[in-house]
């Protein structure tokens, strides 16, 4: 089948993070646009969750496996490691408990892909500094009283949280407001200033099993790291 083009810039970046023939859960899947793209371009098996009734209905009517539900309540039903990738695109900042969600993502999936708007972007800093009012930008277009985004954070904050939770950042892509793409981990200075939107590929620290050889048996233990 012919490959299809992404409808959104971040979707094409997410696609580059995903290997062929994998099982994917898309949280906040909308009407299944990203699922369709990954099924066709990556031969993925996709599942989705969508809170909005009409979008969920559209996705189901388009033939996708979509559960109409709330990620904050409904993720617990999925078994450990039942997906290769769990995708949370542009919604972490709208979650009641982002930290719990993050650990749920990596419980369900071996890897998680998280994208979010960076609140440390210079335009936002400048707006707050100069006008003294909560910033309103293209990626965060809501006024403070009707925004679904209740937890604002910057790239620095996110990196700290990952560090605290023993989450490994396998890949990280930043986008400037002009759509220029760069590797967050490689560009050291000013990343938190210039990144408009960030996409992370996450996994848990993978502890290499230590093999203790005895004459008869091989003992393996996963929970110990030997440095």
């Amino acid at each position, binding site marked *: 089948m012919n490959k299809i083009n992404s409808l959104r810039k971040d979707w094409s970046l997410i696609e580059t993070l995903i290997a062929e023939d994998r099982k994917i859960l898309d949280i906040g899947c909308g009407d299944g646009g990203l699922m369709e793209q990954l099924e066709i371009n990556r031969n993925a098996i996709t599942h989705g969750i969508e809170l909005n009734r*009409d979008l969920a209905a559209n996705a*189901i*009517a388009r033939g996708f*496996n979509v559960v109409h539900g709330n990620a904050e309540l409904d993720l617990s*039903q999925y*078994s450990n490691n039942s*997906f290769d990738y769990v995708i949370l695109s542009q919604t972490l900042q709208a979650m009641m408990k982002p930290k719990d969600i993050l650990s749920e993502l990596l419980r369900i999936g071996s890897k998680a892909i998280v994208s979010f708007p960076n609140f440390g972007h210079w335009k936002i800093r400048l707006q707050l500094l100069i006008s003294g009012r909560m910033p309103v930008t293209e990626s965060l277009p809501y006024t403070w009283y009707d925004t679904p985004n209740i937890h604002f954070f910057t790239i620095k904050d996110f990196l700290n949280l990952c560090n605290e939770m023993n989450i490994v950042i396998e890949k990280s892509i930043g986008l400037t407001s002009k759509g220029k793409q760069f590797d967050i981990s490689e560009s050291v200075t000013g990343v938190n200033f210039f990144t408009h939107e960030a996409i992370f590929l996450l996994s848990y620290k993978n502890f290499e099993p230590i093999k203790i050889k005895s004459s008869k048996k091989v003992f393996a233990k996963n929970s110990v790291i030997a440095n």
Partner: protein
Amino acid sequence: MKIKFTTDTKLESEIAYFENINLKLESGDIIDSFKLAFKTYGKLNADKTNAILVCHALTGDQYVAGNNPITGREGWWSRMVGPNKPIDTNRFFVICSNVLGGCAGSTGPKELQNGSDVAYGGNFPSITIKDMVKAQSLLIESLNIEKLFSVIGGSMGAMQALQWAIDFPDKILNIIHIAGALKHSAQNIAFHEVGRQAIMSDPIWKNGKYFENNEVPERGLSVARMIAHITYLSENAMHRKFGRKLQSRDIISFGFDADFQVESYLRYQGKSFVERFDANSYLYLTRAMDYFDHDETFRKNIEFSHNPNNHLKYLIVSFTSDWLFPTIESKMIVNQLNSLSREVSFLEIDTDKGHDSFLLEEPQLDDVIKGFLTNNFAKIDE
């Protein structure tokens, strides 16, 4: 096993006779021969991949679409099934059979006991949803259809669809399960019991032998229907439809006539039901629903089934105002399937029409069913 097909012109139905088949029921009883009345719509394609079984609800029958000769009205799901309808008979071959224990031509309490000229009445063996599905599977087999593309049903029909997924996953590709549950709840059993008591306390019922004098326990059956009908609606829908409006009068009568429109409506529902439904069938079928319980066993049955069921797709639909089979019951099924990483879709449709929504005008239900069938059929057709 001998199977014979005839057409009953009065019932406008095909009848499949299964003779000397010794159908073993879940209760342990055996029915040696039975018949199923069924209707088909559309054409079976050459590869026999486009067959859909529609399972009817408690008081439904095989007349999904077209004319129903018993009521003289349109089939019960004619808004859903037909040419260019959501379940499109230009594309799909739709089969619907009257359930075992029913009263529209299939073997049930109303029919003559095998080899005698007396009807079963109260001697009919207890039937379960599993038994109905077993009989349906024999019918599908006798039609030389190896695999159904889909099994679709609402309410008691949803129970049958779920039972198909448990018992015959190798013979189906997907199910559409509307307004159903893993189990019949205590409240639902309670309502059914009131209905049954209404029938059984009608002096004409006579332990189910009312037909001997050509009588019908009309009062009991109509009261049972009136109670059940309330559970199919919702408070908002009733208020919207009737409010406190009076029936054919300007002032209240200070008596017990049907002053209110809602009373008159229920009386009409009860009365017209008696004309088309058998009281004993009502007892047996409500009982079958009461016995339905996969609460503890569903997950295990799916996970450890000896029949492969990994390929199954599930579409589960509930309605916000359905208090008989509330959304939480559907979500239990979804949760268990998701915990097993099965291909499940779920939608709760926002409506005030209550449990009966699946039979009524709900555009979102139409869209989802049509899209689910069309797109999944395109995938197997590739």
